[in-house]
Every structure is written in structure tokens, then in C-alpha cells.
């Protein structure tokens, strides 16, 4: 019997990046699945680098910009706070691993919503996935 998505198949991508947050602005980072690729998404890390709390949301859209899922609902993250997504209601720092099948052209948006007058900062985020060629 074949095994589902063998551990040695494809490659792991972490999509780590920094995103600049300014004073009281809303910023979105978009991560798109490349052509001829398939991602099995496990989740990732979100960091609010600002000195005020910000709501963060992670959505999934298809290539036609239609929302097909929400991997992290709008959740307040404190100043200089980390969360993993998806997480559990019991603990925002407890990673609840999933595995989501996304196709080429689908994209994930990570949005840091404005939280009021602030100093801004360099937020970080990741999206860990196993990428295979199709």
C-alpha cells in the first residue's frame, strides 16, 4: 500500500518572512502556491512586532480570489506576542497541526489589522508546507 504523502516526497518550505508594520496601519502578506506545485500546509508562526495589540487573521483563497477557508480566525495578539496557527482554544501557543491540500494559484493571506497609534515594527510569519511537483 502506498503511504499518504511520504516523508521523503517533495521538499519542505517554511515561507519565513518579515513584514513591516507602520503606525496604525493594516498590512497583509500574501503567500501564493506556485505553478505546477501542490502544498500540504501544516501551519506556521505569527508575530506581532508592534507595541500595541493587533488582530491577526489568516485566510485561504483560490486563484479566483474566492475565500475557501480560514486557517486562523481573527484573534488579538498582544504587543510583541507570538502565536502559532492553527492553535487550540485552550492555549494560543499550542499548535494544533492540520494538513490542508492547496493547489497552484491558491493563496494564503496573513493580515495584521491596525491596533491604534503605534511604533510599528518588523513582524514575522511563516507557513510550513510540504511542496510536491504536479
Amino acid at each position, binding site marked *: *500500500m*502506498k*503511504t*499518504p*504523502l*511520504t516523508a521523503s*516526497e*517533495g521538499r519542505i518550505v517554511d515561507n519565513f518572512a518579515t513584514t513591516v508594520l507602520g503606525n496604525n496601519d493594516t498590512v497583509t502578506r500574501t503567500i501564493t502556491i506556485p505553478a505546477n506545485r*501542490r502544498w*500540504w500546509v501544516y501551519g506556521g508562526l505569527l508575530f506581532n512586532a508592534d507595541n500595541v495589540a493587533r488582530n491577526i487573521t489568516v485566510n485561504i483563497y*483560490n486563484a*479566483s480570489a*474566492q*475565500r*475557501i*477557508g*480560514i*486557517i*486562523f*480566525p481573527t*484573534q488579538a495578539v498582544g504587543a510583541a506576542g507570538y502565536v502559532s*496557527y*492553527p*492553535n*487550540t*482554544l*485552550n492555549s*494560543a501557543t499550542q499548535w*494544533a*497541526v*492540520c*494538513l*490542508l*491540500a*492547496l*493547489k497552484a494559484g*491558491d493563496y494564503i493571506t496573513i493580515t495584521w489589522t491596525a491596533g491604534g497609534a503605534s511604533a510599528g515594527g518588523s513582524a514575522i510569519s511563516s507557513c510550513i508546507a*510540504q511542496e*510536491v*511537483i*504536479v
Partner: protein
Amino acid sequence: MIPEGDEGRIIDNYAAIVLPPGKVAVTRTITVPANRRWWCSWLFYSNGDDTTRNTYIVVYNSGGLILLRSASAAITPSSYRMWPYTFFIQSALPVMKWSFVLKAGDYIRIWIDAPALDSSGGISDSAVPALEVLV
């Protein structure tokens, strides 16, 4: 046989669901085509109405027999739900790679109950991303 990660194709089964104004129940049915097998990853539904809607998911076989049924969830305006649902997972995400596997002729029906109060109606998003393989 369980597919490998690069097998078949991913489909998202996205569709907008029109919610008429008033107190009208709505369903959306998604059927697995002939000679296909679906490994469903998750199901997504948002409530585009201005009134809370009770919504639940039922999976049937080709004979109309119920294979799976979710609990009914009261979904507030502009809110959403992802199935399978667990109270322990923020936003109700699936915790396994394959949430459920369906054969040709099986179908998923999203049941959206009539609201208790007259509503303005609206457009809801719905999707069932799945890996589809030929059989």
C-alpha cells in the same frame, strides 16, 4: 489504496450560495462524479446573511443513506465554520490529513435552515477542497 501526495488533482468545489430574503431554507449539494474518488480535506461555509443561520452538513451515499452528519451550528452574520469541527481547535480545523473519503455517487449537502426572523438574504461562500483521483 491511499494516494501519494502528487497524485490526482486538487479541486476546491467553491460556490456562492444565494440566501433569499425572508425565512427560506437553502441547501447546496456537491456530488462525487462517476469514476472518481474524493479525499476531502475540509469544508468551509460562511454566512452572508444579516441573521444567524443554523447550518449543518450531511454526507449521503448514492442511495440517500446518511454516512456522516455534523452537529447543527448557529452561525452569526459574516461568520463562518470549517468542518470537521472540534471544540478544541480554534476555527474548527481538521486535524487529520484526510477528513473523509467519498466514492462516486456520494454527495455532501450543506443544510442552511430558515432563519427564525426575516432576513435580508445574501451570498454565502462554500467550498470543499479535496484531492480527486480517477478510479
